[in-house]
């Protein structure tokens, strides 16, 4: 098999299948086998090895036992990663609550009601799963994307960064509510990098206990890198810090708890990943968390600007949590 290509098993729940996704992965050089869910899939998995299994999950219905069993089998198979494709019903967004609560999925991508999928998101996701080379937002955007970057060290810079994010979003001529969502997500990420991420040598959080109105300043080596991009179709935020203090289980626990919407959805004095991550997840279309524990975290949020605010609301959300090798 050529370097960088993989054997991919695509499992669909019904006839309409995942033709578009299959074609995209074949064009990217991967060896794709497509099967409909059933006994044949389990038989195939006993006889072959796939680096990635892509499952078309019907999250808008009661999860079929076969789907749940398949997800469990794939996750227990050494050397096989799981990527789930989700689509909503009647053009509405796919509900994502169960993806965190029931399945604790780390990779899911939205599929349009007509079966279309973002080819860049799909090929980049598969490449990152295979290579563990995970950092960088550029690969999600067209090469001609405009960019604004800042290195942020102090809480005193937040207002200026917020103003810059607002102005950057408005350049895309997006709906003002999308610009507000973009600006809010930037603020959450800057707060996260300044207050939640910094840890001492023992890994103990330094500032997470502080009120976000208490000033903090990081050293030059600890500053966050914020990159805002726009490629004519997508607005992108990338926030990177040199701590790598976010934990995969913490991310999934937080999103699962927040989607439950119970009394503990918002925890007063929340430290670490809390309601802020949930807000970011809901305000962007694709949330990507890249991390190497204790070395680096990069959070990327992508908004497909679209034609209207309704389009922005209707689009299903995608999510990836990559744990990679040191850059």
């Amino acid at each position: 098999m050529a370097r960088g290509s993989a054997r991919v098993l695509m499992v669909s729940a019904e006839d309409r299948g995942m033709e578009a996704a299959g074609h995209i992965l074949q064009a990217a050089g991967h060896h794709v086998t497509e099967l409909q869910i059933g006994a044949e899939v389990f038989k195939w998995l006993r006889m072959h090895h796939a680096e990635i299994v892509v499952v078309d999950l019907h999250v808008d219905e009661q999860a079929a036992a076969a789907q749940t069993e398949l997800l469990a089998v794939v996750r227990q198979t050494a050397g096989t990663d799981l990527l789930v494709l989700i689509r909503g019903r009647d053009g509405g967004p796919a509900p994502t609550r169960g993806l965190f609560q029931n399945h604790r999925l780390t990779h899911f991508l939205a599929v349009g009601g007509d079966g279309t999928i973002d080819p860049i998101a799909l090929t980049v996701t598969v490449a990152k799963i295979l290579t563990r080379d995970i950092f960088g937002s550029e690969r999600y955007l067209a090469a001609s994307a405009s960019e604004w970057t800042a290195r942020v060290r102090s809480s005193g810079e937040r207002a200026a960064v917020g103003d810059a994010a607002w102005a950057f979003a408005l350049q895309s001529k997006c709906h003002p509510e999308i610009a507000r969502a973009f600006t809010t997500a930037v603020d959450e990420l800057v707060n996260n990098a300044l207050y939640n991420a910094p840890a001492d040598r023992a890994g103990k959080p330094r500032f997470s206990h502080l009120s976000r109105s208490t000033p903090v300043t990081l050293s030059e080596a600890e500053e966050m890198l914020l990159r805002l991009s726009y490629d004519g179709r997508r607005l992108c935020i990338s926030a990177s810090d040199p701590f790598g203090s976010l934990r995969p289980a913490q991310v999934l626990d937080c999103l699962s708890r927040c989607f439950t919407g119970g009394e503990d959805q918002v925890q007063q004095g929340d430290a670490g990943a809390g309601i802020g991550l949930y807000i970011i997840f809901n305000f962007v279309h694709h949330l990507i968390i890249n991390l190497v524990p204790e070395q680096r975290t990069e959070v990327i949020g992508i908004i497909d600007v679209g034609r209207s605010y309704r389009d922005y609301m209707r689009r299903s959300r995608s999510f990836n949590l990559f744990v990679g090798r040191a850059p």
Partner: protein
Amino acid sequence: MKVELADHDGGAQARISGPIDADAEFGALLDGRWRELRLDLSGITMITSPGVRRWMRFVAEVPAGVAVRLERCPPVFINQVSLISNLLGSAQIESLFIPFLCPACEAIRDVLAPARELDASALPEVTCEACHARMELDVLEEQYFSFLKE
């Protein structure tokens, strides 16, 4: 965040504007002298996660028997209501802005509507001020109006 406060027959009439964030201060509304709080939220520009916590602490600390009525709620507030299950507490949404889009010229407009008259079949009819075409609702009804079910 800025609070402009006026006495209105023993009740507080307050206009809240700017970002609701870690610096948001609601103390002036909690000093015990108000029988009712009528809050105009139209000037809110952003609600961050520390702001969500401060707002929820505020609505939880409103003395029993003091009604909190939220007026002219902007989309940025309504969106957070749809995400955060207990954001309203005992507060009532009296009126809100609803985004509309003109399918002909793509003009956008936020239309103020009283909450009590809203249901999915009784949304206001809106005409584009630029081209006079009939404007379309520019939100997902199920999500945007989810507070009506509570």
